[in-house]
């Protein structure tokens, strides 16, 4: 019921009919395309045209706080972007943020999925509780972490420490979570939100294992770890890749958590936040657009690899 068992018949049919261009007359081909066109044209207009405009604006000297000084800027904006240390830092932050959140939530998600694959009392309730973080509106989650959990004076974390200190009679430390470790704070809140997502995908993967093989292995005397190492994990690989890819797509773009939790802290500012700030605070449309173009180019490079991964996922599906 998962990747590998997706229906081959369609694929076969698709490639046989899809490539038979010459055999179909024009009208028939357009009749085939017709249902696709509204969605395709809409997507091109709404998602591609703005980027072309961004590209155009990136060559202009256009700063709203300087209304009299507009014109063609050549590559000045790009020079400004590449010489801006804050932007370079934000690239690093973006990479760190995305990589750590994806990896940690995959690992935690795997652990939880393995737990949920066991039989125990109240499994449904546990699963429901574990999904809850993913269903909190992201900006609500960010506000919750910032004000109700991380707040150094009355947040739950320091409150809990004080309480423990009271119970066990030690002087509870009261860390300043967001000030001392802004990036970590954002990472923690995002891991909390994304672990359930990874767990759900991996759980689906676990439950699609061919159980007869696992049972046969168990009868042959394989230990639980051996089963995991040689049967479960290889089977899960594809699901791990899928979770990693989808998580990356969304976390690279994260804006809500960075903006809300750390305000304008430099140590956590990621690329979307930096561009937003150039657009809004500096009102430098030219420079913001140039930064946007640079990010788009970077994304295309990364996306090419990512798409290849997805593509291989679906090739695998096709192959079976």
């Amino acid at each position, binding site marked *: 019921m998962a990747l590998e068992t997706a229906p081959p*018949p369609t694929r076969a049919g698709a490639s046989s009919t899809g490539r038979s261009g010459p055999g179909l007359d024009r009208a028939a081909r357009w009749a085939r*395309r017709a249902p696709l066109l509204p969605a395709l044209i809409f997507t091109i207009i709404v998602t591609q045209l703005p980027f072309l405009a961004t590209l155009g604006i990136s060559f202009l000297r256009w700063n709203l706080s300087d209304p009299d000084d507009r014109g063609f800027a050549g590559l000045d904006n790009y020079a400004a972007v590449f010489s801006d240390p804050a932007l370079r830092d934000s690239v690093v932050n973006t990479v760190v943020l995305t990589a750590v959140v994806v990896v940690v939530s995959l690992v935690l998600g795997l652990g939880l999925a393995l737990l949920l694959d066991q039989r125990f009392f109240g499994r449904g309730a546990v699963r429901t509780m574990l999904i809850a973080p993913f269903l909190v*509106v992201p900006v609500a989650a960010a506000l919750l972490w910032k004000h109700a959990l991380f707040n150094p004076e009355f947040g739950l974390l320091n409150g809990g420490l004080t309480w423990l200190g009271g119970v066990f009679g030690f002087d509870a430390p009261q860390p300043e979570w967001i000030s001392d470790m802004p990036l970590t704070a954002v990472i923690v809140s995002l891991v909390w939100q994304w672990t359930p997502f990874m767990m759900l995908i991996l759980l689906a993967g676990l439950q699609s294992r061919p159980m007869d093989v696992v049972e046969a292995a168990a009868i042959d005397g394989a230990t639980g770890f051996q089963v995991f190492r040689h049967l479960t994990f290889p089977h899960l690989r594809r699901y791990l890749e899928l979770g990693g890819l989808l998580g990356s*797509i969304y976390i690279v773009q994260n804006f*809500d958590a960075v903006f809300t939790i750390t305000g304008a802290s430099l140590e956590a500012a990621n690329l979307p936040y930096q561009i937003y700030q150039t657009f809004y605070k500096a009102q430098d449309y030219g420079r913001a657009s140039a930064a946007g173009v640079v990010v*788009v180019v970077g994304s295309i490079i990364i996306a090419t690899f990512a798409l290849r991964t997805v593509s291989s996922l679906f090739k695998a599906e096709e192959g079976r």
Partner: protein
Amino acid sequence: MSTTTAEPAARANPTRRAWRPWGVIAWASALVFAAPVLWMVLTSLHSEPDAATNPPSLLAPLTLDGYADFFGGIGGAGPWPPLVNSFSASIGSTVIVLLLAIPAAYALSIKPVERWTDVLFFFLSTKMLPVVAGLLPIYLVAQFSGMLDNISFLTLLYTSMNLPIAVWLMRSFLAEVPREILEAAAIDGAGLITTLRRVVAPIAMPGIAATALICFIFSWNELLFARVLTGVVAGTAPVYLTGFVTSQGLFLAKVCAAAVVVSLPVLIAGFAAQDKLVQGLSLGAVK
């Protein structure tokens, strides 16, 4: 709750039943992950001074003041206009997405166009471009066309945001319709409409529901466009939520109450359809 949760239990390996501690560990982790949500709900039911104590006052008397503050608004019209805006943008865009995505998915699976994989990957690639890089032109277009602060414009943007995911999802669902049945229907002389209604729709309906759920959640959650493009009349619930962080002393209970209310539609929809959520989030690759 999902109908499928009971099923894996039956399949679980009997040899592993001996591992009793797993249940305890699972419950413990579930409590850790749910704690912030439970804390949010509890805080929303406390008075402002009780919400801001250290150590936390778990057993403080419960009150609905936070919710009263939220629904009473900060003097204005209250949360209803933003909630209605959020509902209309989310549901409106979901409907348009389905109307566009289902035919497109049909043309990518059941009767595929030439080079359909390229088209499919084009759709996915649009999701990888950073939204923020297109923000400025979109703002300018909205300004010059008089569409700033207009919920219809936001609905349109949400449609474009969700369409690629919906196309992927619907394609994977439609691809499940067995060829033989379609061919059999054709031999029986069923027309296109009949085939769609009698054969394709019943098989695709769960997929449509999953797609709708995902699109609804993503639209409901969206903040960046909403914050830049709306103002007096078209503000959505997430934007309204951010306005509760004031510089006047304590606001924790009120913000938590607001966060609970704004998250409620997603929580309800998500809990009601957990399995759909997984399918949807994995672009239909995991079923």
